[in-house]
C-alpha cells in the first residue's frame, strides 16, 4: 500500500460485529457494516475534494493538476478479511495527479493544512473511526430494541 494511503476499517469492533451478527444474522450484518463504511468513506472523499479545490490550496493551487480531483477514491470496494472489513479512502496514490505533493509540500509550496490534518495527524481518522463505530453500535442497539 502506498505511503499516506488511508484506510477505514473495523479493527477494534470485533465484539460489536459478533453481537450484530448474533442479532441480525451474518448477511444483514455485512450489509450494515458495508453501508456504514461507504458512508464514512464518502465523507473522507468529500473532505479531500474540498481540500484540493484550487481556492483552498497554497500557492494558488498551481501544484494541483486537473488529475488531482480525479485521483480521489470514490465508491471504494469493501474488502473482508475474516471478520474484519476495510476500504481505501482519500487519494488513490497509484493514479497520476494524486496529491502527494500537496501533503508534503515543496520548497516553494507549504504543505496544505487541511490535507496534513487528514493524512498526517491521527485525530482526523480517529474521528472517522469513531463515527463508524457509533453507526455500527446504533444498529446493534436498534436490533436489540433499545
Amino acid at each position, binding site marked *: 500500500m502506498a*505511503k499516506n494511503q488511508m484506510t477505514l476499517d473495523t479493527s477494534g469492533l470485533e465484539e460489536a460485529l459478533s453481537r450484530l451478527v448474533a442479532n441480525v444474522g451474518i448477511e444483514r450484518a455485512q450489509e450494515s457494516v458495508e453501508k456504514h463504511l461507504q458512508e464514512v468513506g464518502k465523507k473522507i472523499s468529500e473532505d479531500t475534494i474540498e481540500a484540493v479545490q484550487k481556492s483552498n490550496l*497554497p*500557492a494558488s493551487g498551481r501544484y494541483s493538476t486537473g488529475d488531482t480531483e480525479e485521483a480521489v477514491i470514490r465508491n471504494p470496494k469493501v474488502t473482508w478479511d475474516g471478520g474484519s472489513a476495510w476500504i481505501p479512502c482519500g487519494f488513490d496514490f497509484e493514479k497520476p495527479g494524486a496529491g*502527494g*505533493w500537496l501533503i*508534503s*509540500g*515543496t*520548497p*516553494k*509550496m*507549504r*504543505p496544505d493544512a487541511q490535507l*496534513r490534518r487528514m493524512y*498526517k*495527524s491521527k485525530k482526523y481518522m480517529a474521528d472517522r473511526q469513531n463515527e463508524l463505530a457509533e453507526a455500527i453500535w446504533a444498529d446493534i442497539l436498534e436490533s436489540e430494541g433499545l
Partner: protein
Amino acid sequence: MRDEITTLLESFGYPVRLQGSFAPSEAYPDNFFTVWNNTSTDWSHYDNAPTGTVWDFTVYFYSNDPSNVITKTEAAIALLRQNGWIISGKGYDAAADDPNFTGRAFEAIFAEIDTSPIIRRT
C-alpha cells in the same frame, strides 16, 4: 523547538528554511534542509495543566547530488536521535519543484517534558 532543530541541522553547513518559503523564481542552493512543524500536543496533564509538549516536525533534505540526499538524510537522522529526537525509519522520497533536485523527508518527534516535581499553574 523550531530553533533547536534548525540549529542542529545547520551544523551540516547547509541552509535550513521553512518548507514552502522559497519564492517561485528563487534558485535553490545546491544542498539545503527545510522543516515544517506539523503539530504540538500536550504530553500529559497534572492539576489541569499540561506537563510537557510533544513536537512533531517533518524534516526535508534536497540536493542536486542524489547520493548526497541519501547520506545526509541518514546523517541528519543520526544527529537528531543523538539529541533526543524520536525518528522511525530512514525517511521517504520527497518531491522537489526543480527537476535537477531530489529530496528525502522524515518525521521527527520531540517530547519536551516538564520534570518539575510540583507543577504550578500560572
